[in-house]
């Protein structure tokens, strides 16, 4: 049938073959016939052939090679799914000869356009590796490349490949750590598990233990210092924890980032993800925070019994270490009669671990119900559990003992036997009081047949024969009678009992002992014969064995330590929780041990994604960005996973910023900053005071800024910690004015002085516009000194002359007027407008200090870049503040993300001292706000710099008529429409002000509009030329609604934020 021309017949044949394979029948004879069909057009036949090939290629290597060319063709197919499936099958064929072909294919696919193909490439890596581990080095290169990928689709798979191929190359992770943390929530669930497990190991090697200094005593005020600095980084929670513990430990912000970003995943529907987060918290989180996982784990107990089984195993381990965590959920571990036995026993284990003085009575009551269960294995386990409770909690020992003694009259022999064994252990702790029980048990020897129980009773009587002097010889007599019929373990105990009695009460038992020993001498079991011989020599005095004889009594009746009843889950936590090894309590193949915390944290700066220069300027601007983060994250949440991936660099870079500002010591850039401060030669006290005021001011401003949008979308917090911190502030802001001021200043005081001393504030340079405004807002009481210090700061970089023609307000209103005139559809075709007006903001590229006298600033001139219309023109202003000439200034080694391009400015031959040069360079940002990193070289030095565009600069204004605008807007609805409500502040209600603010926030052109209270703007993104339409509709009073239509949703959301912020100012 396979040779048939008809696809349907072929299909039928293939189906039969696959069914054969499924049943485990050998179908390898058909290989030649099947492999012919690999080029078949019919997709289903093809798929089935693939299934067959993957299964049998290994056995028929030569023939399998025939199919390779088909896949190679498939790899070039324009359809990404065909490319992916070709790669999948190609890499699944385990034929060593094609290793080079596979390698090539993987390499190619790793830089494929489609993330789906890249994901397949990541999957193929471990396949190739297991085929030929010689390729490791090359594969690592591919992994490194894929790790840098920013799409969520790839992340999980590549980390899986990393774990398979080179888990020891932890250095590959550094650069991607923050990205992975931030992407985590959007990665598909299986990838999440792998990433979390990998990050757990990573964190164990890179961060300090959060619980290391628990025992440290109260620290001086100096230590509190760090705590409040943490507040700066919005780690209120960590701060509280660290203050509570009064220790100098500061959690690495990256460590915090990991904890914060994994926490929402506890809400995942996938049990494996929840477990992975739980183990991460258990292994990495400070003790105070581990509790959050309990609830999620308890939730998993509702799931399938297999899931329950695994979760309970882990809970059992955790409950030993951190009992408090699960105590509130005690009742969730109560046992139902319908649970499978293995679940029951695990639950029992957890209940026992959780027992303490307060809840023991309820637990014991539960246990009583369990004892009557029909499931006898379970009953036995319950009895043991009672025994453990009794040993652990002294208070209830007697109650337990009494309960167990009552069980001795149980009808079920197994129950009785189990109780006897447990009672024996309990009695050993305090034998004196319980001779009654021992007597009672002695009577049981007549009935109980279970050997272990009999042996236990005998041992007890022997051990405490002094307490029961009358009964003991009698028991021995009975046992001697039945000796031959006993089990080995009982026989040994009989000998033991005999020996002990001989020593204590030789009068009555001498003959009996002799008799027993004689019986034992001819026993079948050599252990028993040995024992008998040994004991006879020891206790029966002869001439030869005098020496030991004296000590016989001491030997036999020595005080024996009571056994400790322990959980079998004790010490299991040295295996990583949630792992197979933990479950089996044995190392599984391929298990990687969880490394111990390092004594000293490795250099945290390795994780900084940006070049050092970048992280250095912890400017106010950036800090503002940090405050803005909630908005970003909100939009991420709203606009789906890939976008958040796109807007990644924001939070990424921001994190790096925060890390350098809070990481207290290590990063070199900070040291430099401190030097800066020294150079300022100002009384530090005075200065700090200034800054305090300034910072307070700034924060207040931020609060104001936030007030509006926050109400509109209070859901914007990135995480709980942040939420807390923010929440506090909002509350304060809302509170009565006076109180607010007071509370603020007192709380901020500390942090402000802190930050000044750590120098995070010193090297800052804010956009001049902002600066000016800030100056206006400075309260008069502090105006004097503040002015000076601010001016000092400003002196570092004198505001450069505006390179752009200072387009004034008049000109724009003219433009808009003109626009208003052309209402007809036959207007000028949508064309790029010349740069709009507005105060152009300048940003710092290189600070004077960092640049060793060379300072560089840049601004977006908003003119079309002459060479290439897809590039954003960046005006660069270089001033030489050194006293020597700077030669051959140029841009080199741009490190750009895929797709980004840079047009360098021509090399500057030389720049005289005091001179300033202005250049224009073009950067194609690919419509993303990713920073462009490059080096600025002089003849002596290289400076790492990066330019990050505000989203508003990524577009160029477009001129269109109202009708066109409407038409375009109609096309861009749904997902590509973003609407936000806002409140316009007093200043911003005039037409003029609104237009000005919007155009300053983004490079857009105004579109004429019929109605009074609507403003429209249009622009095109520079790279892709997609339209961005902005509509601002004023409602009654201060309310307004902002709508942005753009197919670039990321740009849209970011733009919304920027404009709202601009309007709220």
């Amino acid at each position: 049938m396979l040779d048939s021309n008809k696809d349907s017949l072929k299909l039928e044949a293939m189906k039969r073959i696959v069914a054969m394979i499924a049943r485990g029948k050998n179908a390898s004879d058909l290989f030649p016939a099947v492999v012919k069909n690999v080029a078949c057009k019919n997709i289903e036949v093809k798929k089935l052939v693939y299934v067959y090939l993957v299964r049998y290629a290994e056995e028929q290597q030569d023939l399998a090679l025939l199919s390779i060319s088909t896949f190679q063709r498939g790899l070039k197919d324009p359809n990404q799914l065909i490319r992916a499936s070709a790669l999948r099958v190609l890499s699944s064929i385990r034929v060593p000869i094609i290793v080079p072909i596979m390698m090539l294919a993987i390499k190619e696919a790793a830089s494929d356009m489609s993330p789906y193909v890249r994901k397949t490439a990541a999957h193929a890596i471990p396949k190739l590796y297991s085929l030929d581990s010689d390729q490791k080095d090359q594969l690592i290169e591919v992994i490194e490349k894929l790790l840098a990928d920013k799409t969520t689709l790839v992340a999980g798979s590549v980390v899986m490949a990393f774990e398979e191929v080179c888990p020891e190359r932890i250095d590959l992770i550094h650069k991607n750590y923050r990205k992975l943390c931030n992407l985590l929530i959007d990665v598909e669930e299986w990838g999440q598990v792998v990433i979390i497990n990998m990050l757990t190991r990573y964190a164990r090697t890179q961060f300090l233990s959060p619980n290391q200094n628990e025992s440290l005593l109260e620290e001086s005020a100096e230590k509190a210092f760090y705590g409040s600095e943490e507040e700066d980084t919005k780690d209120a929670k960590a701060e509280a924890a660290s203050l509570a513990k009064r220790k100098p430990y500061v959690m690495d912000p990256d460590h915090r980032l990991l904890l914060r970003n994994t926490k929402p995943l506890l809400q995942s529907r996938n049990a494996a993800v929840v477990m992975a987060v739980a183990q991460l918290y258990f292994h990495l989180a400070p003790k105070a925070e581990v509790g959050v996982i309990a609830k999620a784990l308890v939730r998993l107990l509702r799931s399938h019994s297999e899931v329950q089984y695994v979760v309970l195993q882990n809970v059992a381990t955790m409950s030993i270490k951190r009992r408090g965590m699960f105590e509130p959920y005690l009742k969730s571990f109560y046992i139902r009669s319908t649970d499978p036995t293995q679940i029951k026993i695990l639950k029992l284990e957890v209940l026992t671990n959780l027992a303490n003085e307060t809840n023991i009575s309820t637990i014991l009551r539960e246990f009583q119900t369990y004892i009557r269960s029909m499931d006898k294995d379970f009953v036995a386990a319950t009895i043991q559990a009672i025994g453990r409770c009794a040993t652990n909690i002294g208070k209830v020992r007697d109650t337990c003992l009494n309960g167990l003694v009552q069980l001795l009259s149980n009808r079920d022999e197994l129950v009785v036997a189990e109780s006897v064994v447990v009672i024996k252990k309990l009695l050993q702790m305090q034998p004196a009081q319980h001779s009654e029980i021992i007597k009672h048990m002695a009577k049981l020897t007549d009935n109980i047949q279970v050997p272990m129980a009999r042996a236990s009773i005998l041992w007890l009587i022997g051990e405490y024969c002094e307490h029961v002097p009358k009964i003991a010889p009698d028991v021995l007599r009975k046992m001697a009678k039945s000796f031959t019929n006993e089990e080995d373990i009982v026989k040994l105990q009989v000998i033991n009992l005999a020996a002990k009695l001989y020593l204590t009460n030789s009068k009555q038992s001498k003959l009996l002992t002799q008799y027993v020993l004689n019986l034992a001498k001819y026993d079948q079991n050599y252990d028993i014969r040995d024992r008998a011989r040994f004991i006879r020599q020891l206790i029966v005095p002869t001439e030869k064995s005098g020496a030991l004889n004296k000590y016989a009594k001491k030997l036999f009746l020595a005080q024996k330590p009571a056994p400790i009843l322990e959980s079998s889950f004790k010490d299991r936590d040295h295996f990583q929780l949630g792992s197979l090894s933990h479950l089996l309590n044995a190392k599984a193949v391929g298990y990687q041990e969880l490394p111990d915390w390092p004594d000293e944290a490795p250099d945290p700066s390795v994780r900084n994604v940006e070049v050092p220069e970048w992280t250095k300027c912890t400017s106010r601007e950036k800090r503002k960005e940090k405050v803005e983060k909630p908005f970003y994250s909100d939009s991420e949440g709203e606009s789906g996973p890939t976008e958040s991936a796109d807007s990644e660099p924001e939070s990424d870079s921001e994190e790096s910023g925060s890390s350098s500002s809070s990481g207290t010591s290590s990063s070199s850039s900070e040291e430099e900053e401190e030097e800066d401060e020294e150079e300022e030669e100002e009384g530090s006290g005075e200065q700090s005071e200034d800054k305090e005021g300034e910072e307070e001011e700034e924060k207040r401003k931020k609060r104001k800024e936030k007030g509006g949008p926050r109400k509109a979308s209070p859901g914007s917090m990135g995480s709980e910690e942040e939420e807390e911190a923010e929440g506090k502030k909002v509350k304060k802001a809302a509170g009565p004015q006076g109180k607010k001021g007071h509370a603020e200043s007192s709380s901020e005081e500390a942090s402000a002085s802190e930050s000044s001393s750590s120098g995070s504030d010193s090297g800052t340079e804010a956009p001049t516009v902002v600066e000016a405004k800030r100056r206006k807002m400075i309260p008069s009481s502090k105006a004097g000194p503040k002015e000076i210090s601010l001016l000092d700061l400003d002196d570092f970089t004198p505001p450069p002359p505006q390179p752009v023609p200072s387009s004034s307000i008049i000109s724009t209103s003219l433009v808009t007027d003109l626009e208003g005139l052309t209402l007809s559809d036959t207007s000028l075709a949508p064309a790029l407008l010349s740069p709009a007006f507005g105060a152009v903001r300048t940003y710092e590229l290189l600070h004077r200090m960092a640049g060793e006298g060379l300072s560089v600033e840049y601004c977006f001139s908003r003119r079309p870049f002459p060479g290439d219309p897809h590039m954003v023109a960046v005006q660069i202003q270089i001033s030489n503040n050194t006293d020597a000439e700077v030669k051959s200034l140029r841009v080199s080694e741009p490190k750009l993300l895929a797709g980004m391009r840079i047009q360098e400015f021509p090399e500057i031959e030389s720049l005289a001292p005091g001179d300033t040069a202005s250049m224009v360079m073009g950067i194609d940002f690919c419509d993303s706000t990713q920073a462009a990193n490059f080096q600025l070289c002089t003849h002596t030095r290289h400076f790492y710099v990066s330019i990050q565009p505000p989203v508003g600069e990524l577009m160029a204004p477009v001129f269109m008529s109202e009708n066109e605008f409407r038409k375009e807007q109609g096309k861009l609805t749904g997902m590509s429409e973003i609407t936000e409500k806002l409140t316009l502040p007093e200043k911003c209600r005039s037409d003029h002000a609104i237009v000005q603010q919007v155009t300053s926030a983004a490079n857009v052109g105004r579109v004429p509009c019929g109605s009074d209270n609507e403003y429209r703007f249009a622009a095109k993104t520079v790279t892709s030329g997609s339209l961005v339409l902005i509509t601002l509709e004023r409602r009654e009073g201060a309310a307004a609604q902002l709508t942005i239509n753009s197919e670039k949703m990321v740009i849209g959301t970011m733009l919304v934020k920027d404009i709202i912020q601009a309007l709220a100012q």
Partner: protein
Amino acid sequence: MWRLVALRVAGGWSFVILEVPSNPGRSVIPVWRSVPCAPCWWDVPCGAVRRSPNGSRAVWCRSVRHHQRASPRPIGLGWPRVAPLERSLRKLAPWVAFLPCDGAVMIHSLFLINASGDIFLEKHWKSVVSRSVCDYFFEAQERASEAENVPPVISTPHHYLLSVYRHKIFFVAVIQTEVPPLFVIEFLHRVVDTFQDYFGVCSEVMIKDNVVVVYEVLEEMLDNGFPLATESNILKELIKPPTILRTVVNTITGSTNVGDQLPTGQLSVVPWRRTGVKYTNNEAYFDVIEEIDAIIDKSGSTITAEIQGVIDACVKLTGMPDLTLSFMNPRLLDDVSFHPCVRFKRWESERILSFIPPDGNFRLLSYHVSAQNLVAIPVYVKHNINFRDSSSLGRFEITVGPKQTMGKTIEGVMVTSQMPKGVLNMSLTPSQGTHIFDPVTKLLTWDVGKINPQKLPSLKGSMNLQAGTSKPDENPTINLQFKIQQLAISGLKVNRLDMYGEKYKPFKGIKYMTKAGKFQVRT
């Protein structure tokens, strides 16, 4: 293919020997000869592969302790086969653990085993693992009295078997290396869910009938043992589920089950939703279903009770709708877990569920109502069960009645009870409904139906006990099932459902239901 023969040695040594690819099983590398001299061997960097001059022999070494060079050499020269090598090694160095392992794959193979112990389907993602692995599983199955008691994780000398038991089928995954067990178990459950989604029921017959589709689905779900596509929306686009109509059409026209159009979902912004969905009736239904888990004491007092709820949705909407669902009293929800489509941040801040739904049926949310809220128990059971010591007769009497039902009727009441082994037979008369007692499994089932508050249903009669044996020391536990329509017992109420992003007006419906979960009455 290199077969790894890993030697894990006690004192921190570990070696891995690689088998020659061309003729597996035959020529194994003489470890000591393949490298020039011993010191070099120690210096082989971790993970490196050394080839001996003839090109077919290789050594890989891992985590060698350099400072312990003087340690014993466990391996001799030139071994012709694996087995003798293994044997000799055992003799030379009994402390060596000898474990073969074949690369690192997450899920190596999958076996489907039915209740009678037949392997009726097997699928291998890497090299073939012999069926004989399952013998270990059967052993464990024998040891466990009931199917549920088979341990989910079984360790065998060379493999680990992870299994789930659903629909009377064991799904046994074979793995070789460390992997989070929940990962595999959760995946297996997902496989079962997918089958159920595809075929309506997941039974042995169904799987056998659709073995090709099953195979195709499995092929898509796992790539090299790592989950690839598990969203059933995507899978359905890749491989169309079989319907009677399509089967007929297929046989006539020869068209296929495989989707002609390649899916876009995996590649789009929302991986769980396919693009280009079109419906003429746009509908969105949400079922709020709450289950009461409770243990009731002998005396009728509640020992533990909690409410677990889910919101199952059936959304058939055109295009890319963006929905928000808000509750009147979201505070009730103590612990929630979401479908990946739900925007977590929005929930955190506003307690609003905002999501772009997958197409069709899915579970939007499952929640737990906080333990602080007292749980209203809607039914009570009066029972009088006792066994007399002397005679072989016992009395049995149960009455079921409504308690706190908020005015709703209790329907679908079903009482089951596992009687002790000593009970031979029961002669009972119900006031309503039907009852069955299975003398083999000793399971009593009483299908009550609706509860009429005026005339409470009861079941009375006597039990015949085995003569001569003493009375059972435990009274049976009573398991209860019931349903209450149009009521969420926790008081949870959906406030409103809004749709953004699309122009049409969808039809929206919300249904509430309360059910008994694991509701037990101890007697």
